């Protein structure tokens, strides 16, 4: 019963959506150019893959995501540990970070382009910012809620300050850090799509902005599906990695 419902129920909802979509197209509510039929999208999807175009865009986006994400995660985790652990650092840095945090990521794009010109850099910059905040905030939270008794135990065993941070505070905060990393990766995908609006010639985001200019709505939808699927895939990978790390 459980197995069938896992497969059957999503099949009903997905099938239902496609059916409604087809009915709207058949009824001619919108012109074909604006609202392509499911079958047209499916064919475009196939061409997108078979022609190799998909991989060019995918690699371009993934390259930016991983570069930006790694920088953002490194900054978020290391600053988060310092702010969470040292009261003095918190007083110094936290107000600044809290002031910058409410600025929407998209609002950074004009400045990013002015600073970094065209190419990969503005996008990477945007992703660094997008990934940084959730990772930073979750790391701070994890560090602050490290059981005080574990810190005492570590001091009692003779821990020096940086070893305390690396071997005790970091692993104790790891569950929260991994939550931040998953949220940060989600935002990295948002950032990559926004940044690829300008100044680049490849990328999944570029592909949909470009297709929209030529009113290739079918390709826009294909791009959206691919971006959604890739976002889900990276999240699942991070989830399985984190549950493996947290097993101990």
């Amino acid at each position, binding site marked *: 019963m459980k197995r069938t419902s896992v497969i059957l129920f999503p099949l009903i909802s997905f099938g239902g959506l496609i059916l409604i979509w087809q009915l709207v197209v058949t009824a001619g509510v919108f012109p074909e150019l604006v609202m392509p039929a499911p079958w047209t999208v499916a064919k475009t999807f196939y061409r997108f893959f078979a022609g190799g175009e998909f991989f060019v865009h995918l690699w371009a986006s993934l390259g930016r995501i991983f570069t930006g994400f790694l920088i953002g995660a490194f900054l978020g985790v290391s600053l988060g540990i310092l702010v969470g652990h040292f009261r003095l650092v918190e007083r110094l840095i936290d107000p600044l970070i809290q002031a910058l945090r409410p600025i929407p990521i998209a609002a950074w794009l004009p400045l990013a382009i002015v600073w970094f010109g065209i190419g990969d850099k503005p996008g990477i910059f945007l992703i660094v910012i997008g990934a940084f905040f959730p990772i930073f905030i979750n790391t701070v939270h994890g560090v602050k809620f490290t059981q005080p*008794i574990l810190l005492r*135990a*570590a*001091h*009692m*065993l*003779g821990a020096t300050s940086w*070893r305390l941070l690396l071997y005790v505070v970091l692993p104790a905060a790891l569950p929260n850090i991994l939550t931040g990393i998953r949220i940060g990766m989600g935002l990295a995908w948002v950032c990559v799509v926004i940044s690829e609006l300008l100044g680049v010639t490849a990328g999944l985001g570029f592909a949909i902005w470009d297709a929209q200019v030529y009113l290739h709505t079918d390709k826009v939808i294909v791009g959206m599906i691919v971006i959604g699927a890739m976002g889900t895939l990276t999240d699942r990978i991070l989830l399985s990695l984190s549950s493996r790390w947290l097993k*101990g």
Partner: protein
Amino acid sequence: MENKIFLKEVTKVFGEKTTALEGLSMEVFPNEILCLLGPSGCGKSTVLNLIAGFESPTSGEVCLEGRPIVRPGPDRGVIFQEHALFPWLNVEQNIAFGKKLRGGVEDEVRYGESVKKYIELMGLGGFEHHYPRQLSGGMKQRVAIARVLVNEPAVILMDEPFASLDAQTRLSMQMFLLELWERLRTTILFITHDIEEAVFLGDRIYVMTARPGKTKALIPVPLERPRRYEMVLSSSFNETKARIFELIKEETKTFRN
């Protein structure tokens, strides 16, 4: 006799008003089990935290082997009431973790052998790769004991280590600790609110006053070593227990008024 731990006229004030300890003096001799007994809230744990170096006295002296204590260190192994093991490390890694935290200044081979030795001594053989959450309460405390013994501490400080265990496990841990002490003769400061536990384990017992805490009486335990379980039925055990009970009763009254 040269003392191991020495507290002289120690006062500890928290914040502006809360005086936890006032003019407390006590000493712990080498190779003895000294119990510190008192009603809850009397500042027993504060005494331990001062010796461990987690806190510093407002005034007075706290010394280990004649030197003032300034910070925590592996020469004073602490067993907490909750096990305080690192949940992401298995039994073996928890026991060997001190070396890693100190930057591995000890001889690798000797330390490794020492870890193995204490795993055996604590009856943890076969559980090396278990994680703390997979162990019973008694086993967790045995890991915590192994974790400090491997660093060859000058003293072991135990803060109500068996208080959260069920009655049977508590008794078997008390027997276990006595056997261990017979073998190693490590100096132990044992904090408890359980009179029977103090009499059964201790060579001497400091009874504390209600807050602000200081030592009210020093009671030598007239039981021979090695201790056996039947001793709890002896008249000297029960007389000592009754004497301490009277002292504690006075304090709980003072505390209420």
